[in-house]
Protein backbone atom coordinates (compact mmCIF):
# COMPACT_ATOMS: atom_id res chain seq x y z
CA UNK A 1 0.00 0.00 0.00
CA UNK A 2 2.94 2.23 0.63
CA UNK A 3 3.49 2.13 -3.12
CA UNK A 4 0.51 4.47 -3.41
CA UNK A 5 1.90 6.96 -0.93
CA UNK A 6 3.98 8.82 -3.45
CA UNK A 7 4.75 12.37 -2.40
CA UNK A 8 3.34 15.30 -4.34
CA UNK A 9 6.10 17.41 -5.87
CA UNK A 10 5.51 21.02 -6.84
CA UNK A 11 8.16 23.50 -7.89
CA UNK A 12 10.85 20.96 -7.12
CA UNK A 13 9.71 20.53 -3.51
CA UNK A 14 8.55 17.12 -2.37
CA UNK A 15 5.62 17.75 -0.04
CA UNK A 16 4.86 15.79 3.12
CA UNK A 17 1.12 16.26 2.71
CA UNK A 18 -1.46 16.69 -0.01
CA UNK A 19 -3.48 18.94 2.29
CA UNK A 20 -2.75 22.66 2.01
CA UNK A 21 -4.01 24.76 4.91
CA UNK A 22 -5.09 28.41 5.00
CA UNK A 23 -4.31 30.53 8.06
CA UNK A 24 -7.22 32.99 8.10
CA UNK A 25 -10.23 33.37 10.39
CA UNK A 26 -9.20 31.06 13.26
CA UNK A 27 -10.51 31.92 16.76
CA UNK A 28 -6.92 32.59 17.88
CA UNK A 29 -3.32 32.12 16.70
CA UNK A 30 -2.98 29.24 19.13
CA UNK A 31 -5.91 27.39 17.59
CA UNK A 32 -4.41 28.05 14.16
CA UNK A 33 -1.13 26.50 15.25
CA UNK A 34 -2.82 23.44 16.72
CA UNK A 35 -4.95 23.03 13.62
CA UNK A 36 -1.83 23.22 11.51
CA UNK A 37 -0.22 20.50 13.60
CA UNK A 38 -3.33 18.32 13.44
CA UNK A 39 -3.63 18.74 9.67
CA UNK A 40 -0.07 17.67 8.95
CA UNK A 41 -0.06 20.31 6.19
CA UNK A 42 3.26 21.23 4.63
CA UNK A 43 2.01 24.15 2.54
CA UNK A 44 0.34 27.06 4.36
CA UNK A 45 -1.29 30.06 2.73
CA UNK A 46 -1.22 33.69 3.82
CA UNK A 47 -2.54 37.00 2.57
CA UNK A 48 -0.56 40.24 2.32
CA UNK A 49 -2.01 43.36 3.90
CA UNK A 50 -0.92 46.82 4.96
CA UNK A 51 0.62 47.09 8.40
CA UNK A 52 -1.71 49.10 10.64
CA UNK A 53 0.62 51.94 11.54
CA UNK A 54 -1.73 53.60 14.01
CA UNK A 55 -1.31 50.67 16.31
CA UNK A 56 2.05 48.95 16.31
CA UNK A 57 1.19 45.31 16.84
CA UNK A 58 3.29 42.23 16.99
CA UNK A 59 2.87 39.45 14.55
CA UNK A 60 0.98 36.70 16.33
CA UNK A 61 0.46 34.71 13.16
CA UNK A 62 3.95 34.34 11.78
CA UNK A 63 5.33 33.73 15.25
CA UNK A 64 3.17 30.59 15.28
CA UNK A 65 4.65 29.22 12.08
CA UNK A 66 8.18 30.55 12.03
CA UNK A 67 10.93 28.04 12.57
CA UNK A 68 8.79 25.19 11.26
CA UNK A 69 9.55 23.35 8.07
CA UNK A 70 6.72 24.78 5.97
CA UNK A 71 6.24 25.99 2.44
CA UNK A 72 4.72 29.47 2.47
CA UNK A 73 2.15 30.19 -0.19
CA UNK A 74 1.16 33.87 -0.03
CA UNK A 75 -1.92 34.74 -2.08
CA UNK A 76 -2.64 37.90 -4.05
CA UNK A 77 -6.10 38.38 -2.59
CA UNK A 78 -7.20 41.97 -2.63
CA UNK A 79 -6.00 42.41 -6.21
CA UNK A 80 -8.41 42.86 -9.09
CA UNK A 81 -5.90 43.20 -11.93
CA UNK A 82 -2.76 41.38 -13.05
CA UNK A 83 -0.69 44.49 -12.23
CA UNK A 84 -1.89 44.51 -8.65
CA UNK A 85 -1.34 40.77 -8.27
CA UNK A 86 2.24 41.08 -9.56
CA UNK A 87 2.91 43.90 -7.08
CA UNK A 88 1.65 41.80 -4.18
CA UNK A 89 3.69 38.80 -5.32
CA UNK A 90 6.87 40.84 -5.48
CA UNK A 91 6.22 42.27 -2.01
CA UNK A 92 5.51 38.81 -0.63
CA UNK A 93 8.79 37.52 -2.02
CA UNK A 94 10.64 40.21 -0.05
CA UNK A 95 9.51 38.50 3.15
CA UNK A 96 12.28 36.01 2.41
CA UNK A 97 9.96 33.03 2.80
CA UNK A 98 10.28 31.59 -0.66
CA UNK A 99 9.01 32.34 -4.14
CA UNK A 100 5.69 30.54 -4.24
CA UNK A 101 2.59 32.58 -4.97
CA UNK A 102 -1.08 31.79 -5.31
CA UNK A 103 -2.50 34.09 -7.95
CA UNK A 104 -5.93 35.09 -6.71
CA UNK A 105 -7.61 37.88 -8.63
CA UNK A 106 -11.25 38.42 -7.80
CA UNK A 107 -13.42 40.81 -9.69
CA UNK A 108 -16.69 40.36 -7.86
CA UNK A 109 -17.14 41.01 -4.14
CA UNK A 110 -19.92 38.45 -3.61
CA UNK A 111 -18.77 35.64 -5.86
CA UNK A 112 -15.04 36.09 -5.31
CA UNK A 113 -14.61 34.04 -8.47
CA UNK A 114 -11.30 34.57 -10.23
CA UNK A 115 -11.04 36.91 -13.20
CA UNK A 116 -9.82 34.51 -15.94
CA UNK A 117 -8.11 37.05 -18.23
CA UNK A 118 -6.23 38.82 -15.46
CA UNK A 119 -5.35 35.52 -13.78
CA UNK A 120 -3.79 34.24 -16.99
CA UNK A 121 -1.89 37.48 -17.54
CA UNK A 122 -0.53 37.54 -13.98
CA UNK A 123 0.48 33.88 -14.21
CA UNK A 124 2.45 34.49 -17.41
CA UNK A 125 4.28 37.47 -15.92
CA UNK A 126 5.08 35.88 -12.58
CA UNK A 127 6.36 32.68 -14.21
CA UNK A 128 8.71 34.83 -16.27
CA UNK A 129 9.93 36.48 -13.05
CA UNK A 130 10.84 33.12 -11.59
CA UNK A 131 7.97 32.58 -9.19
CA UNK A 132 6.44 29.18 -8.53
CA UNK A 133 2.91 30.09 -9.53
CA UNK A 134 -0.23 28.30 -8.37
CA UNK A 135 -3.19 30.15 -9.85
CA UNK A 136 -6.61 29.92 -8.28
CA UNK A 137 -9.11 29.43 -11.10
CA UNK A 138 -12.74 28.52 -11.57
CA UNK A 139 -13.51 24.94 -12.61
CA UNK A 140 -13.12 25.76 -16.30
CA UNK A 141 -11.19 23.01 -18.16
CA UNK A 142 -10.03 25.35 -20.93
CA UNK A 143 -8.70 27.94 -18.46
CA UNK A 144 -6.82 25.17 -16.64
CA UNK A 145 -5.11 24.24 -19.91
CA UNK A 146 -4.22 27.86 -20.64
CA UNK A 147 -2.74 28.31 -17.17
CA UNK A 148 -0.67 25.17 -17.53
CA UNK A 149 0.63 26.43 -20.89
CA UNK A 150 1.54 29.71 -19.19
CA UNK A 151 3.84 27.81 -16.85
CA UNK A 152 1.75 27.32 -13.73
CA UNK A 153 3.38 24.84 -11.34
CA UNK A 154 -0.08 23.59 -10.37
CA UNK A 155 -3.61 24.71 -11.09
CA UNK A 156 -6.09 25.30 -8.32
CA UNK A 157 -9.70 25.10 -9.48
CA UNK A 158 -12.36 25.91 -6.92
CA UNK A 159 -15.01 23.36 -5.98
CA UNK A 160 -17.43 26.22 -5.34
CA UNK A 161 -17.03 29.90 -4.37
CA UNK A 162 -14.64 30.72 -1.50
CA UNK A 163 -15.99 30.14 1.97
CA UNK A 164 -19.36 28.76 0.85
CA UNK A 165 -18.81 25.18 1.97
CA UNK A 166 -20.96 24.05 -0.97
CA UNK A 167 -18.46 21.35 -1.88
CA UNK A 168 -17.82 20.28 -5.45
CA UNK A 169 -20.56 21.77 -7.61
CA UNK A 170 -19.31 20.39 -10.90
CA UNK A 171 -17.53 17.05 -10.54
CA UNK A 172 -17.73 16.59 -14.29
CA UNK A 173 -15.60 19.67 -14.96
CA UNK A 174 -13.17 18.89 -12.16
CA UNK A 175 -12.75 15.33 -13.41
CA UNK A 176 -12.09 16.68 -16.87
CA UNK A 177 -9.48 19.12 -15.59
CA UNK A 178 -7.71 16.35 -13.69
CA UNK A 179 -7.66 13.97 -16.64
CA UNK A 180 -6.15 16.52 -18.97
CA UNK A 181 -3.72 18.24 -16.64
CA UNK A 182 0.02 17.77 -16.95
CA UNK A 183 0.59 19.58 -13.65
CA UNK A 184 -0.86 18.80 -10.22
CA UNK A 185 -4.46 19.89 -9.67
CA UNK A 186 -5.17 21.26 -6.20
CA UNK A 187 -8.86 21.71 -5.49
CA UNK A 188 -9.15 25.04 -3.73
CA UNK A 189 -12.12 26.86 -2.28
CA UNK A 190 -15.65 25.87 -1.40
CA UNK A 191 -15.02 22.55 0.34
CA UNK A 192 -17.06 22.17 3.50
CA UNK A 193 -16.08 18.95 5.22
CA UNK A 194 -13.80 15.92 5.18
CA UNK A 195 -16.27 14.18 2.84
CA UNK A 196 -15.70 16.95 0.28
CA UNK A 197 -11.95 16.53 0.70
CA UNK A 198 -12.23 12.81 0.03
CA UNK A 199 -14.53 13.45 -2.94
CA UNK A 200 -12.00 15.85 -4.50
CA UNK A 201 -9.22 13.34 -4.08
CA UNK A 202 -11.35 10.53 -5.52
CA UNK A 203 -11.91 12.69 -8.58
CA UNK A 204 -8.15 12.56 -9.02
CA UNK A 205 -7.00 15.81 -7.45
CA UNK A 206 -3.36 15.83 -6.38
CA UNK A 207 -4.29 17.76 -3.26
CA UNK A 208 -6.72 20.21 -1.72
CA UNK A 209 -6.52 23.60 -0.04
CA UNK A 210 -8.91 24.42 2.80
CA UNK A 211 -9.21 27.33 5.19
CA UNK A 212 -12.73 28.36 6.22
CA UNK A 213 -14.11 24.83 6.77
CA UNK A 214 -11.33 24.23 9.31
CA UNK A 215 -11.08 27.70 10.85
CA UNK A 216 -14.83 28.09 11.27
CA UNK A 217 -15.63 24.54 12.34
CA UNK A 218 -16.94 24.24 15.86
CA UNK A 219 -13.69 22.47 16.72
CA UNK A 220 -11.06 23.60 14.19
CA UNK A 221 -8.37 21.26 15.47
CA UNK A 222 -10.59 18.19 15.14
CA UNK A 223 -11.71 19.30 11.66
CA UNK A 224 -8.08 19.74 10.63
CA UNK A 225 -7.45 16.14 11.65
CA UNK A 226 -10.59 15.02 9.81
CA UNK A 227 -9.45 16.82 6.65
CA UNK A 228 -6.13 15.03 6.85
CA UNK A 229 -7.88 11.68 7.01
CA UNK A 230 -10.32 12.68 4.26
CA UNK A 231 -7.46 13.53 1.93
CA UNK A 232 -5.65 10.30 2.70
CA UNK A 233 -8.81 8.23 2.31
CA UNK A 234 -9.72 9.90 -0.98
CA UNK A 235 -6.22 9.53 -2.37
CA UNK A 236 -5.93 5.87 -1.43
CA UNK A 237 -9.43 5.16 -2.71
CA UNK A 238 -8.56 6.73 -6.06
CA UNK A 239 -5.37 4.69 -6.27
CA UNK A 240 -7.16 1.51 -5.23
CA UNK A 241 -9.63 1.90 -8.11
CA UNK A 242 -13.30 1.97 -7.29
CA UNK A 243 -15.76 -0.51 -8.75
CA UNK A 244 -17.88 0.62 -11.64
CA UNK A 245 -21.35 1.83 -10.80
CA UNK A 246 -23.96 -0.84 -11.73
CA UNK A 247 -27.67 -0.77 -12.19
CA UNK A 248 -28.45 -4.03 -10.39
CA UNK A 249 -27.41 -5.68 -7.17
CA UNK A 250 -24.75 -8.37 -7.19
CA UNK A 251 -24.44 -10.58 -4.15
CA UNK A 252 -21.25 -10.76 -2.21
CA UNK A 253 -21.41 -14.58 -2.13
CA UNK A 254 -21.81 -16.96 -5.06
CA UNK A 255 -24.91 -19.07 -5.63
CA UNK A 256 -23.18 -22.46 -5.57
CA UNK A 257 -23.97 -24.46 -2.49
CA UNK A 258 -27.10 -22.48 -1.71
CA UNK A 259 -29.62 -24.35 0.42
CA UNK A 260 -32.68 -23.50 -1.58
CA UNK A 261 -33.57 -23.51 -5.21
CA UNK A 262 -34.07 -20.17 -6.89
CA UNK A 263 -37.70 -19.16 -7.15
CA UNK A 264 -39.24 -19.86 -10.53
CA UNK A 265 -38.86 -17.05 -12.96
CA UNK A 266 -35.87 -15.51 -11.17
CA UNK A 267 -33.23 -18.06 -12.06
CA UNK A 268 -30.31 -16.97 -14.17
CA UNK A 269 -28.48 -14.92 -11.57
CA UNK A 270 -27.10 -11.68 -12.82
CA UNK A 271 -29.70 -9.88 -14.83
CA UNK A 272 -27.20 -7.78 -16.71
Amino acid at each position, binding site marked *: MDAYRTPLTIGGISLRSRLFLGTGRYPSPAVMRQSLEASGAHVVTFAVR*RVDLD*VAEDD*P*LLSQTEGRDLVYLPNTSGSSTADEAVRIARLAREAGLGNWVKVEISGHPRLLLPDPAETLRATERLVREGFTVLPYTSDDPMQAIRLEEAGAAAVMPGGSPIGTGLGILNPYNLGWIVENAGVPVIVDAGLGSAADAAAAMELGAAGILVNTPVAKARDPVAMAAAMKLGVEAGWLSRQAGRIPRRRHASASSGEEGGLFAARPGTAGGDAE
Partner: protein
Amino acid sequence: MRNLMDCRLYVITGESYHPGRKMIEVMEAALAGGADIVQLRDKNATAAELFGKAVELRRLTRRYGALFVVNDDVELALAADADGVHLGQDDMPLAQARHRAGRQLLIGISTHNIEQALAAERGGADYIGVGPVYPTPTKPGRQAVTTAYVAEAAAAINIPFFAIGGISPATAEAVLSAGARRLCAVSAVVGAPDPTGVCIALKRDIERWEARGSMRPESEHGAAAGEAKSDAPATAALTLLLNGKRISTGTATLGELAHSLGLAGRRVMAERDGEAVPRADWDTTRLQAGDRIEFVQFVGGG
Protein backbone atom coordinates in the same frame (compact mmCIF):
# COMPACT_ATOMS: atom_id res chain seq x y z
CA MET B 1 7.14 35.29 48.97
CA ARG B 2 8.41 37.82 46.52
CA ASN B 3 8.27 41.52 47.26
CA LEU B 4 6.15 43.42 44.74
CA MET B 5 9.03 45.80 44.11
CA ASP B 6 11.13 42.89 42.87
CA CYS B 7 8.45 41.70 40.45
CA ARG B 8 9.13 42.36 36.79
CA LEU B 9 7.09 39.90 34.77
CA TYR B 10 3.37 39.51 35.28
CA VAL B 11 1.40 36.80 33.47
CA ILE B 12 -2.39 36.54 33.29
CA THR B 13 -4.32 33.35 32.60
CA GLY B 14 -6.11 33.08 29.25
CA GLU B 15 -7.48 29.61 28.74
CA SER B 16 -8.94 30.35 25.31
CA TYR B 17 -5.38 30.70 24.03
CA HIS B 18 -4.39 27.14 24.87
CA PRO B 19 -7.27 24.81 24.08
CA GLY B 20 -6.42 21.27 24.99
CA ARG B 21 -3.83 22.22 27.59
CA LYS B 22 -4.51 22.54 31.27
CA MET B 23 -4.41 26.07 32.67
CA ILE B 24 -2.37 24.97 35.63
CA GLU B 25 0.28 23.36 33.39
CA VAL B 26 0.57 26.43 31.20
CA MET B 27 0.93 28.71 34.21
CA GLU B 28 3.51 26.43 35.72
CA ALA B 29 5.47 26.68 32.49
CA ALA B 30 5.28 30.48 32.78
CA LEU B 31 6.47 30.36 36.39
CA ALA B 32 9.31 28.08 35.38
CA GLY B 33 10.36 30.76 32.90
CA GLY B 34 10.45 33.41 35.62
CA ALA B 35 6.95 34.91 35.86
CA ASP B 36 6.87 36.83 39.16
CA ILE B 37 3.13 37.37 39.39
CA VAL B 38 0.26 35.25 38.14
CA GLN B 39 -3.24 36.65 37.83
CA LEU B 40 -6.34 34.51 37.54
CA ARG B 41 -8.68 36.04 35.01
CA ASP B 42 -11.61 34.03 33.66
CA LYS B 43 -14.82 35.75 32.69
CA ASN B 44 -16.57 32.52 31.74
CA ALA B 45 -16.12 30.28 34.75
CA THR B 46 -18.78 29.80 37.40
CA ALA B 47 -18.06 30.94 40.96
CA ALA B 48 -17.35 27.35 41.98
CA GLU B 49 -14.96 26.79 39.08
CA LEU B 50 -13.20 30.06 39.81
CA PHE B 51 -12.68 29.13 43.40
CA GLY B 52 -11.23 25.78 42.37
CA LYS B 53 -8.83 27.44 39.96
CA ALA B 54 -7.85 30.04 42.54
CA VAL B 55 -6.98 27.36 45.07
CA GLU B 56 -4.88 25.50 42.49
CA LEU B 57 -3.02 28.66 41.46
CA ARG B 58 -2.45 29.63 45.08
CA ARG B 59 -0.81 26.29 45.71
CA LEU B 60 1.27 26.53 42.54
CA THR B 61 2.48 30.12 43.01
CA ARG B 62 3.48 29.33 46.59
CA ARG B 63 5.65 26.53 45.32
CA TYR B 64 7.43 29.01 43.03
CA GLY B 65 7.49 31.85 45.56
CA ALA B 66 5.48 34.00 43.15
CA LEU B 67 2.64 36.40 43.87
CA PHE B 68 -0.92 35.40 43.12
CA VAL B 69 -3.51 37.99 42.14
CA VAL B 70 -7.22 37.54 41.47
CA ASN B 71 -8.98 39.63 38.86
CA ASP B 72 -12.03 41.72 39.80
CA ASP B 73 -13.21 39.85 42.87
CA VAL B 74 -12.04 40.99 46.31
CA GLU B 75 -14.04 38.32 48.11
CA LEU B 76 -12.55 35.54 46.00
CA ALA B 77 -9.07 36.96 46.54
CA LEU B 78 -9.57 36.90 50.29
CA ALA B 79 -11.20 33.46 50.29
CA ALA B 80 -8.40 31.96 48.21
CA ASP B 81 -5.71 33.62 50.31
CA ALA B 82 -4.37 35.47 47.27
CA ASP B 83 -1.68 38.14 47.57
CA GLY B 84 -3.68 40.71 45.69
CA VAL B 85 -6.67 41.73 43.68
CA HIS B 86 -6.67 43.52 40.36
CA LEU B 87 -9.44 45.97 39.51
CA GLY B 88 -10.47 47.54 36.24
CA GLN B 89 -11.83 51.06 35.94
CA ASP B 90 -15.38 49.68 36.03
CA ASP B 91 -14.89 47.28 38.93
CA MET B 92 -15.25 47.91 42.66
CA PRO B 93 -13.76 51.33 43.48
CA LEU B 94 -10.26 51.31 44.97
CA ALA B 95 -11.34 52.93 48.26
CA GLN B 96 -14.04 50.35 48.83
CA ALA B 97 -11.69 47.48 48.02
CA ARG B 98 -9.10 48.85 50.43
CA HIS B 99 -11.74 49.24 53.09
CA ARG B 100 -12.74 45.61 52.65
CA ALA B 101 -9.28 44.09 52.35
CA GLY B 102 -7.14 46.50 54.32
CA ARG B 103 -3.47 45.62 53.96
CA GLN B 104 -4.21 41.97 53.51
CA LEU B 105 -4.29 42.36 49.72
CA LEU B 106 -2.17 44.23 47.24
CA ILE B 107 -4.45 46.22 44.99
CA GLY B 108 -3.68 46.81 41.33
CA ILE B 109 -5.64 49.09 39.03
CA SER B 110 -5.91 49.06 35.23
CA THR B 111 -5.31 52.52 33.79
CA HIS B 112 -5.69 53.78 30.24
CA ASN B 113 -4.44 57.36 30.62
CA ILE B 114 -2.25 59.38 32.91
CA GLU B 115 -5.18 60.91 34.84
CA GLN B 116 -6.37 57.45 35.85
CA ALA B 117 -2.81 56.50 36.75
CA LEU B 118 -2.32 59.53 39.00
CA ALA B 119 -5.72 58.95 40.61
CA ALA B 120 -4.84 55.32 41.36
CA GLU B 121 -1.50 56.34 42.84
CA ARG B 122 -3.12 59.00 45.01
CA GLY B 123 -5.83 56.55 46.01
CA GLY B 124 -3.29 54.13 47.42
CA ALA B 125 -3.01 51.49 44.72
CA ASP B 126 0.01 49.22 45.13
CA TYR B 127 0.63 49.01 41.41
CA ILE B 128 -1.07 49.91 38.15
CA GLY B 129 -1.41 48.39 34.71
CA VAL B 130 -0.62 50.72 31.82
CA GLY B 131 -2.27 49.82 28.57
CA PRO B 132 -3.34 48.37 26.31
CA VAL B 133 -0.09 49.52 24.72
CA TYR B 134 -0.97 47.63 21.55
CA PRO B 135 -4.29 46.26 20.41
CA THR B 136 -4.87 42.87 21.93
CA PRO B 137 -7.29 40.05 21.31
CA THR B 138 -7.74 39.86 25.09
CA LYS B 139 -9.54 43.23 25.04
CA PRO B 140 -11.07 43.53 21.58
CA GLY B 141 -12.27 46.94 20.58
CA ARG B 142 -10.32 48.86 23.18
CA GLN B 143 -8.24 51.68 21.76
CA ALA B 144 -4.51 51.09 22.17
CA VAL B 145 -2.74 53.74 24.24
CA THR B 146 0.61 53.29 22.43
CA THR B 147 4.04 53.69 23.95
CA ALA B 148 3.32 57.42 24.37
CA TYR B 149 1.33 56.63 27.52
CA VAL B 150 4.08 54.29 28.72
CA ALA B 151 6.52 57.19 28.49
CA GLU B 152 4.12 59.48 30.38
CA ALA B 153 3.66 56.91 33.13
CA ALA B 154 7.42 56.36 33.36
CA ALA B 155 7.90 60.10 33.90
CA ALA B 156 5.06 60.72 36.36
CA ILE B 157 4.28 57.56 38.33
CA ASN B 158 6.23 56.38 41.36
CA ILE B 159 4.48 53.11 42.21
CA PRO B 160 5.29 50.04 40.10
CA PHE B 161 3.55 49.99 36.75
CA PHE B 162 3.22 47.07 34.37
CA ALA B 163 2.89 47.76 30.67
CA ILE B 164 0.18 45.48 29.26
CA GLY B 165 -1.57 44.80 25.97
CA GLY B 166 0.16 43.15 23.03
CA ILE B 167 3.36 42.63 25.01
CA SER B 168 5.55 39.95 23.46
CA PRO B 169 9.24 39.40 22.74
CA ALA B 170 8.58 41.22 19.44
CA THR B 171 7.23 44.37 21.12
CA ALA B 172 9.13 44.32 24.42
CA GLU B 173 12.01 46.34 23.07
CA ALA B 174 9.80 49.26 22.03
CA VAL B 175 7.90 49.24 25.33
CA LEU B 176 11.05 49.07 27.44
CA SER B 177 12.65 51.79 25.40
CA ALA B 178 9.61 53.97 26.17
CA GLY B 179 10.47 53.61 29.87
CA ALA B 180 8.63 50.53 31.14
CA ARG B 181 10.62 48.23 33.45
CA ARG B 182 7.80 45.84 34.24
CA LEU B 183 5.80 43.90 31.66
CA CYS B 184 2.56 41.98 31.71
CA ALA B 185 1.71 39.45 29.02
CA VAL B 186 -1.19 37.16 28.27
CA SER B 187 -1.50 35.64 24.81
CA ALA B 188 2.19 35.89 23.94
CA VAL B 189 2.97 33.65 26.92
CA VAL B 190 0.00 31.36 27.45
CA GLY B 191 -0.72 31.01 23.73
CA ALA B 192 2.87 30.10 22.92
CA PRO B 193 4.01 26.52 22.37
CA ASP B 194 6.74 27.21 24.91
CA PRO B 195 5.56 29.63 27.64
CA THR B 196 8.77 29.04 29.57
CA GLY B 197 10.90 30.20 26.66
CA VAL B 198 8.81 33.32 26.10
CA CYS B 199 9.03 34.26 29.79
CA ILE B 200 12.78 33.75 29.79
CA ALA B 201 13.07 35.99 26.72
CA LEU B 202 10.91 38.72 28.27
CA LYS B 203 12.79 38.58 31.57
CA ARG B 204 16.08 38.86 29.73
CA ASP B 205 14.84 41.91 27.81
CA ILE B 206 13.72 43.60 31.02
CA GLU B 207 16.99 42.85 32.77
CA ARG B 208 18.98 44.21 29.87
CA TRP B 209 17.14 47.52 30.08
CA GLU B 210 17.40 47.63 33.85
CA ALA B 211 21.14 47.20 33.59
CA ARG B 212 21.34 50.23 31.38
CA GLY B 213 19.72 52.38 34.06
CA SER B 214 17.40 55.17 33.16
CA MET B 215 19.18 56.70 30.22
CA ARG B 216 17.30 58.76 27.70
CA PRO B 217 15.47 56.28 25.50
CA GLU B 218 16.00 57.93 22.12
CA SER B 219 19.76 58.35 22.19
CA GLU B 220 20.07 54.86 23.51
CA HIS B 221 17.80 53.41 20.88
CA GLY B 222 19.90 54.68 18.04
CA ALA B 223 23.08 53.41 19.63
CA ALA B 224 21.54 50.00 20.27
CA ALA B 225 20.60 49.61 16.64
CA GLY B 226 24.14 50.50 15.65
CA GLU B 227 22.95 53.39 13.58
CA ALA B 228 25.42 55.93 12.37
CA LYS B 229 23.69 59.24 12.87
CA SER B 230 23.19 60.94 9.59
CA ASP B 231 26.06 63.30 8.87
CA ALA B 232 23.63 65.72 7.30
CA PRO B 233 21.89 68.20 9.57
CA ALA B 234 18.32 67.44 10.57
CA THR B 235 16.47 66.65 7.38
CA ALA B 236 13.66 68.97 6.39
CA ALA B 237 10.27 67.37 6.78
CA LEU B 238 9.01 65.48 3.73
CA THR B 239 5.41 64.84 2.85
CA LEU B 240 4.75 61.25 1.81
CA LEU B 241 1.83 58.99 1.16
CA LEU B 242 2.34 56.22 3.72
CA ASN B 243 -0.01 53.22 3.49
CA GLY B 244 -2.51 55.48 1.80
CA LYS B 245 -2.26 58.31 4.34
CA ARG B 246 -0.50 61.63 3.92
CA ILE B 247 2.21 62.05 6.55
CA SER B 248 5.10 64.36 7.25
CA THR B 249 8.41 62.83 8.27
CA GLY B 250 11.85 64.02 9.25
CA THR B 251 13.45 60.73 8.25
CA ALA B 252 15.69 60.59 5.20
CA THR B 253 15.69 56.94 4.16
CA LEU B 254 13.22 54.09 4.01
CA GLY B 255 15.21 52.36 6.75
CA GLU B 256 14.93 55.36 9.08
CA LEU B 257 11.23 55.65 8.35
CA ALA B 258 10.70 51.97 9.18
CA HIS B 259 12.68 52.39 12.37
CA SER B 260 10.66 55.44 13.42
CA LEU B 261 7.48 53.40 12.95
CA GLY B 262 8.75 50.56 15.14
CA LEU B 263 8.92 48.19 12.19
CA ALA B 264 12.65 47.51 12.31
CA GLY B 265 12.54 44.13 14.04
CA ARG B 266 9.43 42.81 12.33
CA ARG B 267 8.89 40.75 9.20
CA VAL B 268 7.52 43.61 7.16
CA MET B 269 7.90 44.25 3.45
CA ALA B 270 8.15 47.64 1.80
CA GLU B 271 7.19 49.13 -1.51
CA ARG B 272 8.05 52.53 -2.90
CA ASP B 273 6.05 53.95 -5.79
CA GLY B 274 4.77 50.50 -6.69
CA GLU B 275 8.20 48.79 -6.60
CA ALA B 276 9.09 46.32 -3.87
CA VAL B 277 12.26 47.38 -2.03
CA PRO B 278 14.43 44.54 -0.67
CA ARG B 279 15.18 44.98 3.01
CA ALA B 280 18.89 45.17 2.30
CA ASP B 281 18.26 48.35 0.33
CA TRP B 282 16.09 50.17 2.87
CA ASP B 283 18.94 52.15 4.40
CA THR B 284 20.16 53.39 1.03
CA THR B 285 16.72 54.19 -0.36
CA ARG B 286 16.40 57.94 0.09
CA LEU B 287 12.91 59.31 0.53
CA GLN B 288 11.60 62.03 -1.72
CA ALA B 289 8.62 64.30 -1.35
CA GLY B 290 5.50 62.69 -2.76
CA ASP B 291 6.79 59.11 -2.49
CA ARG B 292 4.09 56.48 -2.13
CA ILE B 293 5.35 54.10 0.55
CA GLU B 294 3.63 50.88 1.56
CA PHE B 295 4.58 48.68 4.50
CA VAL B 296 2.84 45.31 4.35
CA GLN B 297 2.95 42.02 6.20
CA PHE B 298 1.62 38.47 6.08
CA VAL B 299 -1.80 38.00 7.64
CA GLY B 300 -4.09 34.99 7.83
CA GLY B 301 -5.48 33.98 4.47
CA GLY B 302 -6.51 31.05 2.35
